[in-house]
């Protein structure tokens, strides 16, 4: 780790103690620790921003969006490991929006280095950029960054609190802190006397935190072992509270009907019929649609549908041919990025065999199980909001704006999320709740979107196209030259979050292509940005969700042209680039018993992607079942460097793959007359219990950097499946979803 990184972390560690002297790169101000946002009640002490001790025990703060990825459990385990408390004995809260909870890893993920080959300078820069997250208010859960963000900070938070509590005990007992130990939420004196943390908290809060050493992994009790999830009991009994489950005294229920021509206005609306319908309290007009407030959600939805509305046009071409033409046009313009340009990609090496291919992938909806919703209570000079969101500080800001209040007047409760996948990093559903609440003073209102409204007002994974040219010689790839065209998610999302659209190369657009650990002498990836105003957003694994399909499908085509086994071919190029990439490919080959040969009626394909710091290799086996394709088996190997919770990682790898397979098989959002044509699950379905493969997962720990868990297994799913189908049928799939070209068992 760089010295600057150490100092920055130490600054966080020492809390209110000043560290003398400035540091290079003008990061002095970055090194100021944000104020502790917790104001504990009487008799409680907040030992730092993540640990609260009061008479009832220990409360840990996990300021991360729990949308299913298990972040609350592993985050709490990081603190509890050093604090010496049991997960079953602590209370876990999400905490308020606060700068202290900035994501130190998200900015680093945005840097244009490849990751796997990052020099120490790039890593150092990543850490400094990470500190900048404080200024950009990036309290964001995304980019599979939670564990890299919290891995050291949270153990330090736990250790610091522990040593401070020990110091308080040492002063009380008149002994040295070194003579004390801790166990199960108590300080243990040399004579065996146990003092609960709660008895020491008030004294500890007055003590400057001492320097701490983190325990080596060999001494871990919790980390590295599968922990029971802290949210499991609630989720198995229907008692876990999602935003849609928030209930307040005398609350009303509302729904929205917003222009389906996305971004268009409402020209006129006749809401007289809606206003007369049973249970309706109020119809509210916005510039782009209406909200109906009623006695219950269903009555509100019926009334909203009864309104006669004339909609203005959307700012993008109304039909798919016009939308896709913007991608073709983007190829003709100068590239936005050339983040990889090794050797000479313009020249076909003499004697090499040329391979070319064009690919495309569609728009996708996030389609979380819990439809978008939020609840708000406006009382004239204050606003309280309950929302399952991935970006609390931004959410609070837009709610304040919508209510005409200062941010200080807004209290935001971040609830559990019934799926996120990137959709709940958007601010729209919280803002609409604030807008409705403002029209209903002193009445708590829950604003729930119908499934149709949710599916047709998403921020979609963009449709993109790719053009690849490559060459093979003597069994190896000697040229890969890829161009990818699509609209920029980064520019749109940063505009919504920060009110600014950064220029410069958009890494996310080419992620999963330019940064793949394949040693190829002439290797170029260019990104072309399309001018298209369809609302787009971060969708689980973002750019890698389509780019892995492009690059890894192309690797398969190159292997065929080179006359090599597709797994061996990838290994031959990965070994020299990044050993953990080769390790996961080798492992998945062993797990699946890969021979390169398959029986009649069986097809196997390999897929690989390095994304969010984690290399993931996958083998998928398909079977011909009376002319339909069954996705029968899958093997996944992933290298996260340090596996903090193996059981949860197994769940994330399996679930991420299924999310990717669902999209690859049947996911597609299309537009006609400016409106999304898919309305509900029958039009936009996913794999079900009888169509998912039997899956085995191996987690490796050879990666020198800790990788992310929530997203990296999604990208290799599509190419692994398409490559397996090629093995089965001899037909190459270059366009998703696959059910337009092949018949699947349903």
């Amino acid at each position, binding site marked *: 780790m760089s010295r600057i990184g150490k100092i920055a972390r130490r600054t966080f560690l020492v809390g209110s103690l000043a560290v003398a002297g400035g540091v290079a790169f003008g990061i002095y101000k970055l090194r100021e620790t944000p104020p502790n946002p917790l104001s504990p009640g009487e008799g409680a002490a907040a030992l730092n921003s993540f640990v609260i001790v009061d008479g009832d025990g220990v409360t840990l703060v996990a300021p991360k969006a729990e949308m299913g990825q298990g972040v609350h459990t592993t985050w709490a385990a990081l603190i509890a490991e050093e604090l010496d408390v049991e997960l079953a004995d602590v209370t876990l809260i999400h905490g308020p929006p606060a700068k202290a909870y900035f994501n130190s890893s998200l900015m680093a993920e945005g840097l244009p280095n490849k990751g796997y080959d990052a020099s120490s300078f790039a890593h150092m820069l990543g850490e400094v950029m990470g500190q900048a997250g404080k200024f950009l208010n990036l309290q964001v859960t995304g980019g599979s960054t939670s564990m890299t963000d919290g891995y050291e900070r949270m153990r330090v938070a736990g250790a610091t609190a522990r040593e401070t509590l020990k110091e308080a005990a040492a002063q009380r007992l008149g002994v040295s802190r070194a003579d004390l130990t801790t166990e199960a939420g108590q300080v243990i004196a040399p004579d065996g006397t146990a003092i609960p943390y709660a008895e020491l908290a008030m004294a500890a809060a007055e003590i400057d935190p001492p320097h701490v050493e983190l325990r080596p992994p060999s001494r871990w009790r919790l980390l590295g072992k599968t922990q029971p999830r802290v949210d499991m009991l609630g989720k198995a009994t229907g008692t876990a509270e999602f935003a849609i489950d928030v209930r307040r005294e005398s609350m009303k229920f509302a729904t929205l009907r917003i222009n389906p021509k996305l971004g268009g206005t409402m020209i006129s609306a006749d809401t007289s019929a809606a206003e007369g319908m049973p249970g309706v309290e109020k119809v509210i007009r916005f510039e782009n649609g209406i909200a109906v407030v009623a006695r219950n959600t269903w009555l509100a939805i019926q009334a909203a549908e009864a309104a006669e509305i004339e909609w203005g046009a959307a700012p993008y071409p109304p039909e798919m041919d016009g939308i896709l033409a913007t991608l073709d046009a983007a190829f003709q313009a100068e590239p936005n990025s050339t983040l990889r340009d090794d050797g000479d990609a313009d020249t076909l090496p003499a004697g090499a065999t040329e391979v070319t291919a064009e690919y495309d992938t569609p728009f996708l909806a996030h389609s979380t199980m819990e439809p978008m919703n939020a609840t708000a209570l406006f009382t004239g000079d204050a606003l309280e909001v309950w929302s399952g969101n991935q970006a609390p500080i931004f959410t609070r800001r837009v709610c304040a704006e919508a209510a005409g209040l200062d941010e200080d007047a807004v209290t935001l409760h971040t609830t559990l999320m019934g799926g996120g996948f990137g959709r709940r990093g958007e601010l729209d559903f919280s803002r609409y709740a604030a807008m409705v609440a403002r029209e209903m003073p002193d009445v708590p209102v829950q604003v729930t979107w119908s499934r149709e409204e949710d599916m047709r007002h998403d921020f979609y994974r963009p449709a993109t196209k790719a053009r690849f040219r490559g060459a093979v010689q003597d069994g190896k790839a000697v040229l890969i030259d890829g161009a990818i065209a699509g609209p920029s998610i980064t520019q749109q999302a940063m505009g919504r979050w920060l009110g600014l659209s950064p220029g410069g190369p958009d890494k996310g657009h080419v992620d999963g292509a330019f940064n793949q650990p394949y040693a190829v002498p002439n290797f170029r990836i260019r990104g072309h940005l399309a001018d298209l105003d369809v609302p787009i957003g971060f969708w689980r694994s973002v750019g890698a969700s389509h780019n892995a399909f492009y690059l890894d499908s192309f690797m398969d085509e190159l292997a065929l042209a080179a006359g090599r086994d597709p797994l061996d071919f990838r290994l031959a190029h990965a070994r020299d680039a990044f050993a953990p990439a080769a390790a996961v490919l080798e492992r998945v080959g062993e797990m699946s018993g890969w021979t390169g040969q398959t029986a009649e009626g069986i097809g196997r394909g390999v897929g690989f992607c390095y994304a969010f710091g984690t290399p993931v290799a996958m083998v998928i086996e398909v079977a011909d079942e009376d002319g339909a394709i069954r996705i029968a088996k899958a093997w996944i190997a992933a290298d996260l460097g340090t596996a903090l919770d193996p059981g949860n990682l197994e769940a994330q790898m399996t679930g991420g793959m299924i999310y990717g397979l669902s999209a690859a098989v049947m996911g597609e959002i299309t537009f006609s007359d400016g409106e999304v044509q898919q309305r509900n699950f029958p039009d936009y*379905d996913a794999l*079900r219990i009888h169509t998912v493969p039997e899956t085995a997962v191996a987690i490796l720990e050879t990666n020198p950097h800790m990788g992310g868990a929530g997203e990296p297994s999604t990208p290799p799913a599509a190419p692994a499946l398409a490559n397996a189908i090629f093995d089965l049928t001899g037909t190459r799939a270059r366009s998703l979803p696959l059910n337009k070209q092949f018949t699947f068992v349903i």
Partner: protein
Amino acid sequence: MSTTLTINGTAHTVDLPENVPLLWVLRDEIGLTGTKFGCGVAACGACTVHIDGEAVRSCQVALADVWGEVTTIEGVGTPDSLSAVQEAWVEHQVAQCGYCQSGQIMQAAALLAQTPQPTDEDIDIAMQGNLCRCGTYPRIRAAIHTAAAKLTEEG
């Protein structure tokens, strides 16, 4: 119009139009929020409850048509007193986001009541109407087998 329902053994009287689906009576009128809204068109199973022991999509049953006693996830077991199916769900750490799991558990409980030792094919048929976007299906299957074994042992 006043209607009385028996839900988890307790009588509830509501004054609502007869066409309001049971789902919304449970969630918005009675405050039993364990039953979830997912699609409103019987395509996801998140709203599954039991009426006289039969698994039904509560988004498709009008208040006037509720033909028997309603059991929701809250009536199956509580954090302090789990049913065998819920115990298996915890043992296998099934849930990720957890939003669909009330419906999954209600569907699984109905399956086990009818077919105490379900085969994988029985599970496929009974559970394919229940969507899970997190992809917890392999653990759902394992938990159903565990619950079946547990229930058989208990006799």
